[in-house]
């Protein structure tokens, strides 16, 4: 067992470096996104870029604290941290502050804290703790139920806060479970489900039903006519058909008007560019107008002049696309992909399954944010309000992602020590 001599020893500098590049690039893009001539100074604390700089400074402090913390702290206190965060999610429902329709903020003086950002981290810890226990097998039905509970609880609480986007993030844990042995059918089913969901909205459901029936009949011809297989075939046909019908039901009766609208915009059914389609259209205009090398730093007009909404938070990628063009935005994509691959690689080199599962949790959460956020700005996914990790403006999200990542970097640094 090797002793760690200083806190930076064995730190994975690739991941740390990628993190720092993204954070700093985010900061200057926030500056560009909301740039006004009267507040030229990037350190102007009355402006969001000045504030972001404070958040960044705090994030550095936080990461240093994490690196100095005893390695056993997080694994020991995984459950307590989870429980505290769940209580906070509950508390925010009672005393929270409503911002843009979501009741997910604590108001502490001038400072707003969003516990749901930190709940991801806590859930990740709890999940890693639970699944890494010695006698746990993911194939067990009991394990599945408890896992579903650990993940489902924050989802439920966040749904109640009316923050659908943040709740959806927990879907990301599918990757963790898959890696830990959950049947690969889960992923296939997931993809199939999403595909069917959109198909059901685009095409008349009876046509889909007809096609499904035809496929079932063809399959029936080829399978061995055993009772079990016939049951499976008939069963899955009924389930899929039920799914198709429930999609329309959910769409019509459960989804809210703006959620329906966002899906309609994505599917091209709705083209009201001044109403519900405005955000996505302006977002595409901003990115598309960047061209190959972009308009140049501070030369963007679409974001700075407020044509794009939420330009420093959820739509920050528009500023990157507009001012840095195809070159800049592709580099950002590449940086993220490298970071994700690096984290996966790091997770795989862990000797403890706790660290590995936690590492995969980190990768999954960051990846999910990245996919949904960027897909939304370039018109490949419906508008879901979740931040782009490390780049979007906001103290809570920056700190939460920093904690998420650095707890893993700390574990990775001490991987040889631990077991």
């Amino acid at each position: 067992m090797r002793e760690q001599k200083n806190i930076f020893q064995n730190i994975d500098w690739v991941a740390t470096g990628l993190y720092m590049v993204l954070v700093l690039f985010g900061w200057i893009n926030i500056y560009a996104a909301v740039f006004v001539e009267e507040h030229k100074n990037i350190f102007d604390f009355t402006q969001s870029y000045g504030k972001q700089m404070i958040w960044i400074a705090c994030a550095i402090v936080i990461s240093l604290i994490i690196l100095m913390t005893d390695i056993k702290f997080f694994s020991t206190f995984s459950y307590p941290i989870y429980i505290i965060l769940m209580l906070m999610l509950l508390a925010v429902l009672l005393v929270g502050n409503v911002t843009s329709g979501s009741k997910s903020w604590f108001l502490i003086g001038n400072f707003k804290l969003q516990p749901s950002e930190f709940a991801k981290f806590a859930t990740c810890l709890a999940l890693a703790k639970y699944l890494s226990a010695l006698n746990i097998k993911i194939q067990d039905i009991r394990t599945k139920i408890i896992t579903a509970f650990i993940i489902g609880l924050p989802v439920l609480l966040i749904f109640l806060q009316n923050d659908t986007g943040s709740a959806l993030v927990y879907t990301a844990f599918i990757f963790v479970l898959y890696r830990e042995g959950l049947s690969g059918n889960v992923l296939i089913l997931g993809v199939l489900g999403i595909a069917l969901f959109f198909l059901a909205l685009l095409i008349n459901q009876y046509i889909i039903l007809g096609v499904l029936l035809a496929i079932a009949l063809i399959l029936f011809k080829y399978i061995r006519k055993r009772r079990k297989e016939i049951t499976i075939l008939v069963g899955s046909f009924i389930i899929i058909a039920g799914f198709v019908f429930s999609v329309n039901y959910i769409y019509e009766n459960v989804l809210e008007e703006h959620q329906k609208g966002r899906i309609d915009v994505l599917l091209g059914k709705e083209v009201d560019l001044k109403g519900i389609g405005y955000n996505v259209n302006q977002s595409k205009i901003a990115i598309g107008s960047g061209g190959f090398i972009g308009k140049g730093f501070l030369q963007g007009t679409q974001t700075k002049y407020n044509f794009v909404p939420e330009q420093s938070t959820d739509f920050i990628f528009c500023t990157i696309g507009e001012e840095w063009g195809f070159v800049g935005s592709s580099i950002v994509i590449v940086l993220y992909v490298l970071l994700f691959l690096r984290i996966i690689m790091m997770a795989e080199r862990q000797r403890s399954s706790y660290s590995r599962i936690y590492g995969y949790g980190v990768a999954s959460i960051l990846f999910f944010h990245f996919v949904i956020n960027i897909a939304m700005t370039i018109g490949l996914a419906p508008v879901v309000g979740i931040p782009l990790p490390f780049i979007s403006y906001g103290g809570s999200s920056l700190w939460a992602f920093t904690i998420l990542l650095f707890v893993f970097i700390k574990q990775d640094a001490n991987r040889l020590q631990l077991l």
Partner: protein
Amino acid sequence: MKAPHSERQHIIKIIVLSVGVIFILRLFYLQIIDDKYKESANRNVFRYITEFPARGLVYDRNGKLMVYNEATYDLMVVPKDVKDLDTTELCRLIEITKEVFIKRLKKAKGYSSYVPSIFEREISKEMYGFLQEKLYRFPGFYVQARSLRKYPLSIAAHVLGYIGEVSPQKIMNDAYYKPGDYIGISGIEKSYEKELRGKKGLKIKMYDVYNREKGSFRNGMYDTVSVAGKDLITTIDADIQELGEKLMKNKRGSIVAIEPKTGEILAMVSSPTYDPNLLAGHDRSKNYLMLLQNTSEKPLFNRPLLAQYPPGSTFKLLNALVAQQMGVVNDNTRYPCSLGFHMGGVNVKCHAHASPCNLEQSIQHSCNSYYSYTLKAILEKSGYKTTREAFNTWRTIVLSFGLGKKFNDDLCNELSGNIPTAEYYDKLHGKNKWRALSIISLGIGQGEILLTPIQLANFAAIIANKGYYYIPHMVKKIGNEKTIDSRFTTKQIVKVDKKYFDIVLEGMSKSIEAGTGTGARLKNITMAGKTGTAQNPHGEDHSVFVLIAPVENPKIVISVLVENGGWGATWAVPIASLLVEKYLTGKIERVDLEKRISEGVVKY
């Protein structure tokens, strides 16, 4: 030890990589392949603001202001920005009905939702002041200043011309013009459009989503500054022009006065005329229609350039010159006149005067017989095999006087007049079947010959100059440029030698002293003139007169044509004489004459 299921990391990595690739491909499509986003971005942010330069001013030859600009305001609309509008209030302010409002907004939208269009043009100063305060309540509307042409002297409408909205056709052919722009439509406003208009400036301003101005695009790197139009100093003498118009009141016809040494047009009157201010300003189209529909007076018709008349006796001067040049007459040649020319069944009547005349007397008395003999002599000159050959020689010399063709002057619209061709007579009489007697009326300026008043004046200038002219023109100086177009400074030499002019001038002087033009006589000013009567099959003959003064050093030549004016002496002679008096002495002493002429009415 390998963790279980560690091979699954590859599937996950592949998913991550594919998402990255999909995103980059999508970005490639959005940012590089599809152009529409760039255009949309520009439409979001940019407003193209045109700066209209001041149109050049126009002065007379003595520096008197003839045309200037007065500020006026157009109410502009950008349909995209129109929202939450109190239509009723706006309609009330600019005094239009709601239907008109809706129609105009629709039209503006039809042109472009993003580009400003004129909603109401030339609103009054009072309305502007009123509107300016309330404009913030009407998003999408703003007021743009531009200028209106004003004519302080209210004269020379045909010379100056007018400006109006540019036609869709012109916009298609000339990228400079945009709908709603103004362009010179006639007169020197048209022929000097490029100099007068200057150059429009374009500013690219950026606006944010709340329509607040955010400054110039790239600090104005792509902005262009407007360049003011150049001022013109015309050759017109406003006093002469004004007097001419006054004298021609209630008469139909034209006056052209030229400075023979330069070809500068001193005055050009077309009567009936109109106040040029009528075609500038808010009621322009209404007034235009009114002028256009006045078919009895045709005030828009520019007679000095577009009316063509038989020159009558004034043409005898030309025949006198050509005949001398061709060597068929000299100052001693005499022809008889027995109240006319009678030969081979052809009769050309003449009035009673001493007979036979020599060349000089023939001009003094305007003898028809003399010029019938002269033309016969020209066409039957020995040495030519056919009448045709002789005729062509005659015609070539005649054409060198600027007749039968356009001058290519700076007045944008003129007619060429007519000097008949041999081919024409072939058609009329059969090929080479025509003889001198068939076309004898050419001798006295009747028949197929047609001249415009400006050609007639230029012909007088050639006589004054004894053999050359400069293309008549209107503009002396353009802005600060040292020269005008070289075609106006190139001497045009006619095909008659200088020496032959003296006797013609002599005859014309006699005509003033003791001939048909005695009414023109002035103390201390020598003059040479020739009356004419242009036959008019539709009624009373047209009265024609050309005048040169002073003879020894001609400073002004004038052609006057009064339609249905009968004998030249009645109207045309005193009009020309008064103009010469005013031009050469600066004042009019014959006040009674001036009063009688300007109050006189000639029915047409």
